[in-house]
């Protein structure tokens, strides 16, 4: 179809181009001479259009046509005209000006008149080029050199100054002319085309579709199409019914063009375009496929309701199937679509899982290097990683290792998304092998300058080192302890960093062959003062709880006793114990009097019973050293220990008995304990079902009996022997090590030992998008018996890490082999918490 040109015919549009270096006429106007063939309009420029000498219409048209292009597309300048010369007057002025410039010594030498004439000539010849370059740069030949007339770099020439405004004017004129033409054309043509598209003859439909496709490429006609709901509907129908490739291709191409505008998207959506497009996702033809996916992507991004429509049309399964293709840009779009569809929608995530999505996504991460694709894929995995059904699938497909591959990438957004995903997955990945590279990268990332990166790295390390010996050893070997101490030091009061870091250190300092090395390393890095300092405000309870556990582990190393003492750990621990103990007492009394709090004394999601247990446990280990014992005695806390012997919770009884056992090693201690009336409860505890409790109770009683008369000792020995040995005559192995050697002799206990206490609970960092609520595990169930516990489950109440333990899973004689872990008794039945129905946490803006 013909297009009108945009030739700026000055006579009609009054554009005044001031040639470079020329001065304006006194009246401010300059003339731009028409081609020489035409009659010159005026020598000195127009003063006003009325002055324009009248030409007959033919001549006007002739003039017009001089500058009219001949061909059919695009915009032409007067490219076919000759450079119009200026009137002689201007030439004179040019010459004068140049001479004037020369006289000012602008250039090195003064110019002769011939030289000036020469230069002028050159300038004239290239003037039209300069003007053309300013107004119609797209018509220039590539690489054409146009001499610049700019003498002073600070001063743009007149043409340069006018370049931009004349460009804008040119565009405005183009648009106007186009629009008018196209809009007219389209308005007349569209009803016709609609009829043709609805024709029964496929050839007709095909031709009509091609026409529409061509129309859709131009902006004005595109708008006309979009605004016609019937047209879009006809297109969609033609698409659905098409059985020939070319029709399909042009139709979906037209829809694709429409999808760049809001009205277009709305029109496509309303005409039921989405099911038709989703069907095309099975097409074997690449161009069709690319058009379809891009159009769907635009719809998903900008058109409300598209997500539901795509889901209902079965788009998810098809998109997952498309992940097997190998065009990276295409894959980037597909993965972005998946991310949009899966975000916040549990059902979509499950469909992706069922279609083998996780495997494909992990494969993509491993195979490609195009950053955008890696980023979009990591975002899909991030969205899937909060779904408890997808998590194991991703981990099993090697997701952790694949994500680890990109932790050293330059792109911060990619690294951050990988870290978030890893953190979400990490509590499901505690039994995975080949994590060495990941752990090494994470330790390295602890030194990053970006807070988010450090936070995530600490959280992931905390989870991965939980109950996994192999990982603990690896992290220690790559300098994890040192890095974590440095991280804690640098983090200051930022609990989102210190808490996971402290938990990770706690994991590293116990229950693996290199634990002692780790305990020493923490001291050697001057970590102890910093760590003990975290027991004080403004630390919140979750952090305090974690620090208590870490201190307990550090105290296992005798070289740490002095530094811990010197940092004031003991008084602070006692202070915390007293506070927590009082809270539990208050809670208990309020329950007893019919209060409504049946969940327990909570603060920041931490139960005060856990603090009690933790502090007493730490004091128990610290009390191995005599100076520490003296301090503990002086703090008047023994009464509380004795009170705790009456506690319902077996673990608390055990640690209380344990610390008393240590304290009783000194005569003063033993006396103080006896004065507090500990004998009675201890005697009771001899019959406890918990062997650890019984053993410690026996030990304390024995030590307290040092000064007693001989027959007392004999009776005691019999009593203890009876209590501690079971019917089958074998002593339960656990806690023998904690039984003081003297008592062992006293009751003739056999060999073997095993420290069951203070194992880590389930991994503490729960899934989430941003900094989650850390609940450090402080369970007392050893690793082997963890099968019965659901990692990260909500059983046992919020904040609790005491999951349901199946007694059959535990080794016989195990202290927790009794099903009534006491915490469960205090918790009312929970509403069903099926993880699959839980949405990821999100906010809504209102």
């Amino acid at each position, binding site marked *: 179809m013909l297009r009108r040109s945009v030739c700026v015919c000055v006579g009609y549009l009054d554009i005044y181009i001031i040639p470079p270096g020329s001065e304006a006429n006194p009246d401010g106007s300059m003339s731009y001479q028409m081609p020489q063939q035409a009659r010159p309009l005026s020598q000195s420029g127009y003063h006003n259009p009325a002055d324009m000498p009248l030409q007959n219409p033919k001549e006007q048209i002739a003039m017009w046509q001089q500058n009219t292009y001949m061909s059919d597309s695009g915009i032409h300048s007067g490219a076919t005209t000759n450079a119009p010369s200026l009137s002689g007057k201007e030439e004179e002025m040019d010459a004068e000006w140049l001479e004037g410039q020369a006289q000012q010594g602008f250039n090195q030498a003064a110019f002769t008149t011939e030289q000036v004439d020469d230069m002028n000539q050159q300038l004239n010849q290239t003037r039209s080029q300069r003007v053309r370059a300013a107004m119609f740069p797209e018509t220039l030949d590539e690489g054409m050199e146009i001499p610049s007339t700019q003498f002073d770099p600070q001063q743009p020439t007149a043409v340069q100054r006018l370049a931009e405004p004349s460009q804008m004017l040119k565009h405005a004129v183009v648009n106007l002319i186009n629009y008018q033409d196209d809009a007219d054309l389209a308005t007349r043509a569209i009803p016709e085309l609609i009829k043709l598209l609805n024709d029964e003859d496929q050839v007709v439909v095909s031709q009509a579709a091609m026409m529409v496709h061509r129309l859709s490429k131009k902006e004005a006609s595109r708008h006309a199409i979009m605004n016609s709901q019937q047209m879009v509907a006809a297109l969609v129908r033609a698409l659905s019914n098409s059985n020939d490739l070319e029709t399909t291709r042009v139709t979906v191409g037209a829809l694709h063009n429409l999808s760049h505008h809001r009205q277009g998207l709305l029109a496509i959506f309303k005409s039921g375009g989405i099911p038709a497009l989703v069907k095309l996702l099975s097409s074997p033809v690449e161009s069709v496929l690319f058009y379809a996916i891009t159009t769907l992507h635009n719809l998903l991004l900008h058109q409300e309701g598209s997500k539901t429509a795509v889901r209902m049309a079965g788009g998810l399964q098809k998109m997952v199937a498309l992940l097997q293709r190998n065009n990276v840009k295409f894959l980037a779009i597909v993965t972005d679509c998946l991310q949009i569809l899966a975000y916040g929608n549990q059902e979509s995530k499950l469909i992706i899982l069922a279609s083998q999505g996780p495997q494909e996504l992990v494969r993509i991460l491993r195979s490609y290097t195009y950053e955008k694709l890696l980023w979009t894929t990591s975002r899909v995995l991030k969205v899937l990683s*909060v779904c408890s059904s997808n998590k194991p699938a991703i981990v099993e497909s090697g997701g952790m290792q694949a994500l680890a591959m990109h932790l050293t990438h330059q792109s911060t957004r990619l690294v951050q998304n990988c870290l978030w995903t890893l953190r979400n997955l990490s509590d499901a990945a505690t039994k995975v092998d080949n994590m060495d590279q990941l752990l090494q990268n994470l330790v390295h990332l602890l030194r990053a300058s970006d807070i988010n990166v450090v936070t995530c790295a600490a959280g992931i390390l905390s989870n991965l080192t939980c109950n996994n010996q192999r990982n603990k050893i690896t992290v220690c070997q790559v300098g994890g302890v040192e890095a974590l101490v440095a991280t804690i030091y640098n983090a200051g009061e930022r609990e989102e960093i210190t808490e996971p870091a402290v938990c990770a250190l706690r994991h590293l300092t116990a229950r693996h062959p290199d634990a002692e090395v780790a305990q020493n390393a923490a001291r050697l890095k001057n970590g102890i003062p910093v760590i003990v300092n975290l027991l004080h405000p403004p630390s919140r309870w979750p952090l305090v709880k974690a620090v208590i556990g870490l201190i307990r582990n550090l105290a296992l190393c005798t070289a740490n006793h002095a530094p811990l003492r010197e940092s004031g750990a003991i008084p602070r621990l006692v202070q915390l114990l007293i506070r927590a103990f009082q809270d539990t007492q208050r809670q208990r009394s*309020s329950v007893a009097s019919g*209060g*409504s*709090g049946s*969940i327990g004394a*909570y*603060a*920041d*999601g931490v139960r005060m019973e856990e603090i009690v247990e933790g502090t007493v446990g730490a004091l128990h280990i610290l009390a191995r050293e005599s100076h520490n014992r003296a301090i503990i005695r002086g703090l008047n806390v023994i009464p509380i220990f004795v009170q705790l012997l009456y506690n319902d919770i077996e673990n608390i009884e055990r640690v209380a008995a344990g610390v008393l056992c240590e304290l009783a090693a000194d005569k003063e201690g033993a006396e103080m304990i006896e004065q507090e009336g500990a004998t009675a409860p201890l005697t009771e505890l001899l019959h406890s079902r918990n062997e650890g409790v019984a053993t410690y109770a026996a030990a304390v009683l024995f030590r307290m009996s040092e000064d007693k008369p001989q027959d007392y000792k004999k009776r005691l020995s019999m009593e203890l022997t009876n209590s501690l040995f079971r019917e089958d005559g074998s002593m339960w192995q656990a806690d023998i090590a904690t039984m003081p050697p003297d008592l062992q002799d006293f009751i003739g206990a056999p060999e073997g030992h095993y420290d069951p206490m203070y194992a880590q609970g389930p991994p503490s960092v*729960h*899934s*989430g*998008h*941003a*900094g*989650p*609520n850390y*609940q450090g595990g402080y369970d007392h169930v050893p690793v082997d018996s963890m099968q019965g516990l659901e990692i990260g489950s*909500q059983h046992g109440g*919020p*904040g609790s890490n005491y999951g349901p333990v199946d007694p059959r899973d535990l080794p016989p004689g195990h202290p927790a082999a009794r099903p009534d872990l006491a915490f469960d008794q205090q918790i*009312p039945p929970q*509403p069903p918490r099926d*993880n699959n*129905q*839980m*949405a*990821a*946490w*999100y*906010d*809504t*803006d*209102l």
Partner: protein
Amino acid sequence: MSTTAFSHEPGTAMECLSIPITLEKEGTIDIHGRQVLKCGFKIGGGIDQDFMKSPQGYTDNGIYCTEVHPGSAAARAGLRVHDKILQCNGYDFTMVTHKKAVDYIKKHPVLNLLVARKGVTHS
């Protein structure tokens, strides 16, 4: 005072102090020219959400205000971040799904809220 309002088990009885807040939504015109009423805050939570995954560290399934836009109707009305919304226009918000909470809030142009606030209504 107990801390039970922030560790509340949906469905159980609870009695606590609360702050009444009246929020009159702000009318604005959106890009399509339609009238839109904005409150100026964000909510998170609900019985179908997992509060353990909340970045703010909430301890129960209530509806919490997670953000208040400065200068908005919510800010003017006195709503603060981390306030727990107990009731809205008479609807009980201690046992609602997230979506229901959003629907109730969007329903009326004026919101009569009862909120619990740590350190004020509870220690």
